[in-house]
């Protein structure tokens, strides 16, 4: 990849006693769609605001295209943002809103008008140019906010939970609009969200944060299949997390004894496995199989079906092992037809050894 467009170098942000962002190092590349994800209070928005110059780092450096930005005020940066509340100017019409950034840069009225109209057309809302922003629908307002931010043709666009106010069906549509736009323009998107589905659907890389700490950075698929730690595994959800003691280990495999039963997990290269140590591993819910009778594979637990949840053709089953351990299994509806999955029935939860992912030792 090319040189990083944005670099966060040991950046810390404190508000009085409270540390919002712990020392953070991150590189964001040109043309990348990066999502900052975490629950509220994790520091993702503070990070974004530091990029925009709305917060000044307490320590460390923020660099944009190699230039240290710490002391550059928000109005002197070219880091437009799409706000959670959209923050459209209510007393300006659609076109005037879009023109605002150009006007501040001193562009002539006719020129900025043409540019604004061009962007409104690109986003499919050209016909509303002279309308009051209050009269637009949620999705249309979203597009105005995008046009207003993009009209100055920046290298980077910051987005702060831009879709959180929209109805579910519009969110999916706007996700499409955003990814398409980002590909076409080839500019960097930094996207803050608490929604896993948004982050995983759109981003090239996802940064998972909690309590001001970066827990994992990676492609959505890597984060899902190979969570870096227990926090990420739990945060991502749809994971079965088991913890037990190491009974024995061979070259390739480790045998683990948990309260739900004994299981085999793959042994990563260079890892040590001391018998008696504690070990946690994860099996993604969609890699779990269900059978009505005891399977021949190594890793199987008989569980009672507790409840099921349908989303389209995918069913998530919640099951419980005799010791109380909960299991989640995500299966296709048609696969479920083969077994009796009524609540109270017993099913065997099983998975291939290679699908178990061992979590690194928990940090102290």
């Amino acid at each position, binding site marked *: 990849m090319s040189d990083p467009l944005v670099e966060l170098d040991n950046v810390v942000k404190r508000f009085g006693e409270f540390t919002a962002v712990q020392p953070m190092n991150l590189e964001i590349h040109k043309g990348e769609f990066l999502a900052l994800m975490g629950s509220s209070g994790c520091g993702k928005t503070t990070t974004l605001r530091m990029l925009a110059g709305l917060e000044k780092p307490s320590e460390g450096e923020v660099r944009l295209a190699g230039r240290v930005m710490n002391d550059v*005020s928000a*109005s*002197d940066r070219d880091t*437009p943002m799409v706000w959670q509340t959209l923050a459209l100017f*209510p*007393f300006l019409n659609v076109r005037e809103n879009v023109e605002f950034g150009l006007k501040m*840069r001193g562009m002539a009225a006719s020129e900025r008008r043409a540019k604004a109209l061009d962007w409104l057309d690109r986003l499919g809302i050209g016909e509303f140019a002279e309308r009051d922003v209050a009269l637009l629908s949620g999705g249309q307002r979203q597009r105005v906010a995008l046009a207003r931010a993009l009209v100055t043709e920046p290298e980077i666009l910051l987005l702060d939970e831009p879709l959180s106010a929209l109805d579910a069906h519009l969110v999916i549509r706007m996700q499409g609009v955003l990814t398409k736009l980002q590909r076409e323009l080839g500019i960097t998107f930094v996207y803050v969200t608490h929604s896993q589905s948004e982050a995983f659907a759109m981003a090239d890389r996802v940064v998972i944060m909690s309590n001001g700490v970066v827990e994992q950075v990676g492609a959505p698929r890597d984060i899902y299949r190979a969570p870096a730690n227990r926090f990420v595994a739990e945060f991502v959800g749809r994971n079965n997390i088991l913890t037990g003691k190491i009974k024995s280990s061979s070259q390739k495999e480790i045998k683990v004894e948990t309260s739900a039963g004994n299981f085999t997990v793959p042994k990563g290269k260079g890892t040590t496995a001391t018998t008696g140590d504690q070990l946690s591993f994860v099996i993604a819910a969609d890699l779990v199989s269900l059978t009505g009778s005891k399977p021949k594979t190594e890793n199987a637990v008989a569980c009672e079906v507790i409840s099921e949840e349908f989303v389209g053709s995918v069913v998530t089953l919640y099951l419980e092992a005799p010791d109380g351990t909960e299991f989640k299994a995500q299966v296709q509806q048609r696969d479920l037809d083969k077994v009796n999955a009524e609540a109270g029935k017993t099913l065997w939860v099983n998975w291939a050894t290679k699908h178990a992912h061992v979590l690194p030792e928990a940090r102290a």
Partner: protein
Amino acid sequence: MMNERAIRLFLRLYVGCIFVFVFAPIIASMIFSFNSDRFPTIPLGSFTWHWYETVYNDPDVWDALRTSVIVGVSTAILSTFIGFCTAYSDFRYNFRFKGAYLALALLPPTIPLVIMALAMLAWFSRIGVSGQVWSIVMAHTVMCSPFAMAIIRLRLQQMDSNLEAAAWNLGANQWRTMREIVLPFAKPGIISALCLTAAVSFDEFAVAWFVSGLNKTIPVVVLEIVTGNIDPQVNAIGTFVFITSMTLVIIAQIVIMTQEKKEKQPA
């Protein structure tokens, strides 16, 4: 248990009575201003413009009107400016002693007018600016700026807290943002504050009476006429005063109300 309907009816009548009590003096004054009798009572005499003509031909009233307008307009502008600054400071910033700051800003209306009048009179003579039109303006601005502050603060409350940041983010510095974003947003509040402070100043008689010297305002003239004896002229001036302040107060309220309605439009 009483009948719900009877209670409802009773309460409605009661509210009606209260409104009659509140508006009776205003309406009575308007009616009597056209009444020919020297002592205003019923049955009414005949219709007349006489009292208005008397007032119209009185040069003292014209002088007072001029003073009142100068004082009212200057007070409105000054107190709205100060009120805006204070409201914006409160909206935007947290700082030490903010509680004391707000107390200082909002306290004047709780001090009785006579006390303000005496304190201002003594102070202005001490610093050598007594008896001027500007003395009244300075005193009225103290009394009016809390009202302006309150109205504009309420308006700013409705502003998305990201709106200013959005403007900085698009390249506007703080001063430019004030001009392009905050002021236009606060405009209804500012107009409303201008009207209301003008109305307060236009009606204020105690402080004006003490500090005005020879520069009497309309309410001071009324006060002096009333102190003499019953003179239906007062009804004519009073009607004019009522209509002026009511217009200002109604504009003040309508500007805010229509803005709220407009912004509440469903998306």
